[in-house]
């Protein structure tokens, strides 16, 4: 029987994400690389006590929609829904305004482990690659070193970093096929390609499904071996009208000012 990893709906794709699961969320920070519709579906499902591994904890749909994004959910949806128990991230808060994660963190309602970005990427890759641990010098002499084993190799001090595995990885790609082969566009590859295969179940949200064989063998970024489910974004999405709060408007203005262009 032909292999078919394509599932029909976003709700079906996340149906088995239970309370207490550890989930990786692809993307970097900008919503263009985030699995927005998978996050929206997981929001609807309402699974609680999740541990979330992602670069950022999210800015929120209202911020993004001001910037003109239609598919505008980022990890913030799980935070503001109260679905997160713990976040493992490199940039958990914003330097411009107080995001929902910071609010919950200050209220003692979520836990946080902050990781350096390159180490986060490599810890995820270790899980995918079956590596038991690795030594990096990044973070020596900083807070990152605290509580970790260190070792001198060739006269240089290193920190032992351990693999980071998840139950589910939610990622976003440009195109996918029924074997789960994926390609990404430009800077949306980022953590999406790293996380593919680092979880027991990897679920990819794609913009387009193509026939098997349409993706050139040399140009496939994520071979299907790492992908369990593929779900496609609808061509047309009803755009909700959003009421912007004064705070969001102010944050947006600060963001635009800071961009400097």
């Amino acid at each position, binding site marked *: *029987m*032909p292999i078919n990893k394509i599932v029909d709906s976003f709700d079906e794709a996340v149906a088995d994400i239970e309370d207490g699961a550890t989930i990786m969320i692809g993307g970097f920070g900008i919503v263009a690389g985030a699995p927005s519709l998978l996050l929206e579906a997981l929001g609807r499902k309402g699974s609680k006590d999740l541990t979330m591994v992602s670069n950022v904890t999210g800015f929120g749909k209202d911020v993004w929609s001001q910037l003109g994004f239609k598919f505008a959910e980022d990890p913030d949806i799980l935070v503001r829904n109260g679905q997160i128990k713990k976040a493992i991230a490199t940039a958990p808060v914003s330097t411009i305004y107080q995001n929902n994660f910071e609010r919950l963190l200050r209220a003692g309602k979520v836990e946080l482990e902050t990781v350096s970005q390159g180490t986060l990427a490599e810890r995820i890759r270790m*899980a995918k*690659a*079956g590596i038991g641990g690795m030594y990096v010098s990044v973070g020596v002499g900083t807070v990152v070193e605290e509580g970790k084993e260190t070792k001198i190799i060739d006269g240089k001090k290193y920190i032992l970093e351990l693999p980071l595995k998840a139950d589910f990885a939610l990622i976003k790609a440009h195109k996918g096929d029924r*074997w789960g082969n994926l390609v990404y566009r430009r800077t949306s590859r980022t953590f999406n390609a790293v996380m593919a295969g680092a979880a027991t179940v990897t679920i990819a949200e794609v913009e387009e499904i193509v026939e098997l064989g349409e993706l050139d063998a040399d140009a496939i970024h994520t*071979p299907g071996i790492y992908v369990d489910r593929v779900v496609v974004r609808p061509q047309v999405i009803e755009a909700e009208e959003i009421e912007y709060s004064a705070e969001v408007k102010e944050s947006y203005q600060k963001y635009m000012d800071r961009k400097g262009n």
Partner: protein
Amino acid sequence: MQEKATLDRQTIALRVAKEFQDGDVVNLGIGLPGLACNFVPAGREVLFHAEIGVLGFGEMTAPGEGDFELVNAGGQTVHEQPGMSCFDHAEAFVMIRGGHVDISVMGAFQVSEKGDLANYMVPAREIGVIGGAMDLASGTKKLIIAMNHTTKDGQPRILKQLAYPVTALNCVNLIVTDIAVIEVTDRGLVLKEVAPGWTPEEVQGLTEPKLIIDPDCHDIELM
């Protein structure tokens, strides 16, 4: 002793290929195991993986045809098929070491009753060819060994303990030989199938450890 008919290389490969289920990712070793890509049961979709950096290739090409930039682990040219992907050597072993490969098929010098494997060096030779065998033996979910049941001079290759240097411990799941199919289980080695014309007792006679004869033990079926 071995005057009876035994399975030839192609037939052993054919029997091995019966193990492949829909969607399995299967790595095939050099030599006999490599032949198994030609015998996927009809209607099944199996993804062949080679450590050189390719997933989802098809059958071998005819001799003299094919592209030498599309080869299996043995350097033999294979057909491209839709869905195939190529990657570098580190990624190929991320797949292997990371447990993403379902089945690995390789040859062996010796297998122990605990499923220990020796296939990288004959002691007399002193120089080993480790290749990717250690990674594959310790990383894949199911390891199938395809080999002749005995050495050329009739000595058992399935032993209580390995006499040759270890490739990996406790890794073999199934042994397909020219006269039998044997499963490695926690209870010991279970004889599941024998070559046509062979009895379980005759197979036992060429095997060092005690075999558990499966109540359902039958002739090797190829179709």
